[in-house]
């Protein structure tokens, strides 16, 4: 059955809001706005890092604040660029997506550090879309954030 104009407009607004989440995430990283990053997540949001050898999980506002608070410690101050964001609306205020990131290092004259991708889950909280979870998969990194 064809969608009504109201349904189409609602979906467009949802997709636009979701599209902005990874962009705002990068913007916050660039501006060292770590509380801004945490606010992009749902209260019980999670960030999961999956490397070839280890998995790390930060959950809830406290866990996320601790994770992002340490992101510029070590030899890498990440400056990310996001690409290729695809979104699947799942209905009932849920969606999933995937997007790809390249990192440069502010501490080393913006040297190219590597790339990976995020598998995201999004949830609508009131009128706002938030990250329910972000799972980061490294493809290649010469150095990892926070190490």
């Amino acid at each position: 059955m064809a969608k009504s104009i109201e349904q189409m407009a609602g979906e467009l607004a949802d997709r636009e809001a979701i599209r902005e989440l990874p962009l705002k995430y990068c913007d916050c990283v660039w501006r060292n706005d770590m509380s801004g990053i945490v606010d992009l997540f749902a209260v019980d949001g999670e960030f999961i890092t999956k490397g070839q050898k280890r998995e790390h999980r930060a959950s809830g506002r406290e866990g996320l604040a601790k994770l992002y608070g340490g992101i510029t410690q070590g030899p890498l101050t990440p400056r990310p660029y996001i690409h290729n964001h695809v979104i699947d609306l799942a209905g009932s205020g849920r969606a999933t997506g995937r997007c790809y990131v390249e990192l440069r290092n502010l501490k080393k004259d913006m040297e190219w550090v590597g790339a990976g991708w995020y598998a995201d889950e999004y949830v609508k909280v009131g009128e706002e879309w938030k990250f329910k979870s972000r799972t980061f998969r490294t493809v290649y990194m010469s150095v990892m954030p926070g190490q």
Partner: protein
Amino acid sequence: MAKNIAEIVTELADREAIRELPQRYCDCVWQGDVAGLVNLFVDDGVFTIVGNNKETTNKGRAELEKTYKAGLTTLTPRPYIHNHVIELKGNGRASGRCYVEIRDASNKLSWLGTGFYNDEYVKVGDAWKFQSRRAQMVHMEPKMAAGTTGTQEK
């Protein structure tokens, strides 16, 4: 004459769906999803690659599947898409152009090359698909130049 709200929303939805096509194309390449790639094209969809002083065209699902399977294996490309512009033509037709950078997953994501796609899009039912993609390579590192030559031969 000014567009009504239904026309404006429909055009926005069309543009959004078309905008996602090259993004999904890249996503499928990154994930090694050949079936997903081919499904982004209509049944008689065409992919042409121009570069290295030659032009090669593949048409239809069987040829596209063969070419993409070989290409993803040989080159392990990891693309990023940029600067996508879209022109709606009406009657379920549109064209667009977007620019690509490609890195190599089998060599620490080193840079493989760059170029742009001239795309033709068509609406099939409620879904937009590629009618054709014409990849014009502007620069190819030696591995990519060799890889595109090898993978496009039928």
